């Protein structure tokens, strides 16, 4: 299957909806080990993305992703704004002027996104951040796709890995971001950024599933 700009739009809409739904949940997670704004931050960002989509001039995949990245950077603030913003920008850049993309390009774009997050935030795995959900997901995606050649199946594996990665942040001691200030007290809480990353992974899978069915 080929992923089109319409699929990307659907994905963004789904993320915006899910972020709005999960706003309190994400904020509550952030209250426990951060400053109680993660859900509110992302909701502000993706709501603005939604308001900008209808009048976007560059409606290519890369155009939409870059618009999303720029908008997140300009409206989210905090740590997650530059991180997710950079991720979308890098993904857009990786895709370039392709009108549609296949599995390989999708995997490359997601890898570029993760690299962007790592460059910007200077965190590695195991520091109790969104990276602990995103990195295993991309690993699983690559492996499963290499093994099966089935993108949908690979994405399902990725979402499972993402969820496991998110859950695995709970016993971790935070050493990056705001949660690191809590030291030992950060242990036992789920990282909010890992939770929002999982939510985006789920949205990506749902979009692919619909695309395959529809």
């Amino acid at each position, binding site marked *: 299957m080929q992923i089109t700009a319409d699929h990307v739009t659907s994905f963004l809409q789904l993320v915006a909806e899910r972020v709005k739904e999960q706003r309190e949940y994400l*904020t*509550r997670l952030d*209250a*426990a*080990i*951060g*400053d*109680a*704004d993660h859900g*509110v*931050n992302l909701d*502000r960002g993706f709501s603005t993305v939604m308001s900008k989509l209808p009048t976007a001039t560059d409606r290519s995949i890369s155009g939409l992703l870059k618009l999303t990245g720029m908008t997140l*950077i*300009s*409206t*989210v*603030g*905090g*740590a*997650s*704004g*530059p*991180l997710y913003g950079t991720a979308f920008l890098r993904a857009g850049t990786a895709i370039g002027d392709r009108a549609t993309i296949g599995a390989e390009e999708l995997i490359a774009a997601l890898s570029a996104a993760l690299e962007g997050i790592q460059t*910007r*935030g200077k965190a590695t795995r195991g520091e109790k951040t969104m990276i602990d959900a995103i990195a295993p997901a991309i690993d699983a995606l690559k492996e499963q796709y290499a093994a099966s050649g089935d993108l949908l199946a690979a994405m399902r594996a990725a979402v499972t890995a993402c969820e496991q990665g998110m859950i695995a942040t709970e016993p971790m001691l935070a*050493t*990056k*971001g*705001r949660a*690191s*200030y*809590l*030291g030992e*007290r950060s242990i036992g809480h789920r990282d909010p950024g890992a939770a929002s990353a999982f939510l985006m992974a789920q949205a990506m899978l749902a979009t692919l599933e619909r695309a395959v069915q529809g």
Partner: protein
Amino acid sequence: MKKLINAPENVVKEALAGMAIAHADLIDVHFDPDYIVRKGAPHNKVGVISGGGSGHEPMHGGFVGYGMLDAACPGAVFTSPVPDQMLAATKAVNGGKGVLHIVKNYTGDVMNFEMAAELAAAEGIEVASVVTNDDVAVENSTWTAGRRGVGVTVLLEKIVGAAAEAGADLATCKAIAERVNAHGRSMGMALTPCTVPQAGKPGFELAEDEMEVGIGIHGEPGRRREKLAPARDIAEMLAGPILDDLPFQSGDAVLAFVNGMGGTPLIELYLMYNELARILKDRNITIARSLVGNYITSLEMAGVSFTLLRLDDEMIKLWDAPVHTPALRWGM
């Protein structure tokens, strides 16, 4: 949630609108992107800007004016501002001598300011940055996000603002800023949590006989929870780690800053100041200057932070120099 607000999502803009009217002689407020800028900007000097999440008032907007900041960028409550704000503010205050960014050490603030600095540099503006990280409650290690920037930020903005006003160049301003940061240490505690308007619920819950020790300024829990203690014990808990860290030594002259977290009445702050003064006297440390009040806050949180800054003659001269902002004013 009990607050004097209309809608949680409009708190920051409406408060900015009020500030703009109340201090129309000192500042202008620009919206979208939001920043507070000193009247008549740019001035013929190094521009000094800062920014951070809202909810810490009067910091930073209340420090915009003669002898302190040229602009401040307020983010959403407890959320770092976005690069658009710092870029616009940097352009607005750039008088051709470069702009200093004063950034508190939080991942979000650092990243957003970094992006703004890159963008400003791309437009040919010389930008230097200083990151404050004075909170001794947090371990400073290459394996962590490092110490938080807290109370020293206020003192640094005053001192560097005075240097810029007196004509110091960008490199000198940055050097003074780094010296102030290097010689200042802080630690804070909370008696009550606070509620981010859009979250609607307090950041943590505390029993009637509990307090959080080693808090930052974002309504987050502290390093540890303890049984409520008398003022003199709390003063020891805060002053001890500060004094040992630099370390401050017998014979040092310091600026003693007792800061309320927003919901603490002045009577308690003076009482805490009395305890701090006693501790310093015991260590033969002289209080050469002081500041007591709610200056770097966490919404309505009840609590206190201590900041000690080891002073040298130049810092004292710059601290004493005239300042005229909404929240700090003397000499004019």
